[in-house]
């Protein structure tokens, strides 16, 4: 009898934690998303589905832009992270941990501070653009800050380690003798990479995409700090609706819309990639 209870007791702390701090708030937020009213006169649950339809139609631009920035930044992360992770995993030798640590070093500095430092670095008359402009290499009105490019670049920079680490872990697990075996079977280096190493590393890429695409699409700091007049992301809208307007229903509705889109996107992506078990991969 006691033995049968043990597994339940083990799940109890974590289960309670999730129930109290995840499930309950989710239910509360879900009910908020169907309410009407304002903070002074109160909110009433009226099954106001228009929160969703109005939210989507009003903020369609920002939703699409967030997903686009998410895709661009995630793709840029893969392009930057894969070679780096590959090099550390196969050529890092005894210094692997040092290189990984160096990769992570910037992230010991606050996220907001790092993003703000870009503003100084890339200011219109700052230390990078100023000299190039006075040398006549760039037109006077050229600027990097306050553009979509700056936002995507900032997102890429801020989420890069979340791509590097899972890819590194996947590549690290690839047995080098597999590559030798491929070469014994007359595969060239490129062939061995494409047919053996790369497929084996895909779960790492998948995990990396999960860990970057989702937070990147919902990010609001980069757009606030590095964006201009037409770079607002849906995260900014939600933050604004919550904290500035106290319009909880609309904010909750948009949050759930974003969540639904991301979930559907991730599952479609998992399907397309042919990964057998999304959860199994995601938990590696």
């Amino acid at each position, binding site marked *: 009898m006691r033995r049968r209870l043990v597994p339940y007791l083990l799940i109890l702390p974590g289960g309670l934690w999730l129930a109290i701090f995840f499930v*309950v708030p989710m*239910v*509360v937020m*879900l*009910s*908020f998303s169907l*309410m009407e*009213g*304002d*903070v*002074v*006169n*109160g*909110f*009433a*649950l*009226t099954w106001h589905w228009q929160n969703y339809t109005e939210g989507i139609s009003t*903020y369609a631009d*920002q939703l699409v832009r967030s997903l686009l920035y998410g895709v661009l930044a995630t793709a840029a992360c893969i392009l930057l992270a894969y070679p780096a992770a590959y090099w550390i995993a196969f050529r890092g030798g005894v210094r692997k941990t040092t290189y990984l640590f160096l990769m992570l070093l910037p992230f010991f500095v606050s996220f907001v501070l790092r993003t703000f430092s870009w*503003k*100084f670095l890339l*200011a*219109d*008359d*700052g230390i990078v653009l100023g000299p190039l402009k006075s040398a006549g290499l760039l037109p006077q*009105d050229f*600027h990097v*800050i*306050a553009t979509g490019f700056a936002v995507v670049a900032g997102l890429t920079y801020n989420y890069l380690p979340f791509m590097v680490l899972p890819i590194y872990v996947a590549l690290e697990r690839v047995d080098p003798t597999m590559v030798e075996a491929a070469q014994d079977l007359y595969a060239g280096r490129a062939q061995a990479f494409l047919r053996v190493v790369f497929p084996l590393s895909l779960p790492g890429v998948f995990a990396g995409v999960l860990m970057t695409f989702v937070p990147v699409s919902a990010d609001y700091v980069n757009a*606030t700090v590095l*964006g*201009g*007049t*037409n*770079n*607002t992301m849906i995260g*900014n*809208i939600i933050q*604004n609706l*919550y*904290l*500035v*307007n*106290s*319009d909880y229903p609309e904010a909750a509705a948009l949050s759930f819309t974003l969540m639904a889109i991301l979930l559907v996107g991730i599952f479609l992506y998992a399907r397309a990639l042919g990964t057998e078990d999304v959860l199994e991969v995601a938990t590696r």
Partner: protein
Amino acid sequence: MTTDPALLRGMTRSRRDALRLFGFAGAGLGLAACGVKGQKAAPPKRNDVQKYWAGKTKHGHLNFANWTLYMDKARTPLKEFTKATGITVTYREVIPDDPQWFGKIAPQLQAGQSIGYDLMVVTNGLEFTKLTELGYLVPLDHSKLPNFAKNAGGPYKQESFDPGNVYSVPYATGLTGIAYDPKKTGREITSIQDLWDPKFKGKVGMMSDPQEIGNFGMFAVGVDPEKSTPDDWKKAAAKLQEQKDKGIVRKYYENDYIDALSRGDVWLTMAWSGDIFQQNLSEGSNLKFVIPQEGATIWTDNMMIPKTADNPVDAIMMMDFFYRPDIAANLAEFINYVTPVPAAKEVIAADAAKATGADKKKLSAIPTSPLVFPSDADYAKLRHYRSLTPAEEKDYNAVFQHITAG
């Protein structure tokens, strides 16, 4: 057996709190079914003041929440206060802006819990209105505010947002106008229309706060913001949209416009008066601030006591202390915003006469600065924020956030 009445009071109070806590837990669970009740308070009755303050005593300590860079680094007024009253002050500059501060404290105030501060500073905007309407503020006992009665300037005793200073007294007042770098613009800026000049394409900063940017849009189309109608808002929004579509606006800024201006990312921008003065003093920059000919807005940051304050008596004493002319002068010398105490002008002039070197130059600039002591002609150009009902606020925000949200 005798029962200590204080103990009894304490017990009933904590029991009430416990019941309330259970009530809220229940409310949380029942939320899915019944919605969230509004907390709209009844208008204050005459005996509210008496009822609240009866039996309240001084505790010798107080927690003070303020905005960043809103007092000198040495915290001179607080030290003087401790010297004069024996009350110690924990001072934190934790308020980033009104909406975020309101968002942070509202749930605690709604639940009847202490927010950890006894005195806070909030601008006369939408959040101030919400705080009063929700009954989150303590009605002030004016018998405890003798310095305020004696020294506050006339206009500060009849603010439209809090007639009779029922809930608040001003901490400092400032203007929203245009700041610019004359080296970059190449000419003096005098008009709101300069913010629409295509010559400054991509070099104009506007504020993202819906009230601030809305006001400027209305000045641009010749409307007094305080008397505006929803039709005026739409006209103003169209004007602002045109400015955005032409690529004239670099960005809609929060309080980071000042860095953008000193870095040269923008050449002219909407700005708060004291910021520019402080920036020039600390960075030696040569930025200018102007009250545009069409008008500018004047706002007031107010001291108030949240309903759940633990040390209200200490807090109201602190409030009153800021109305001593020497303390008001000290504050104005550092923050360079408009002081609600006219008598501070002479104190500053006297300080300037005593000072030497760089300090002298700095101090003697203050009594003549229109940013700290605006002239009557300046005052004539200043307009107030419009107060908005919750329903109006929703429309108003929708109209102007459509632009800033981009």
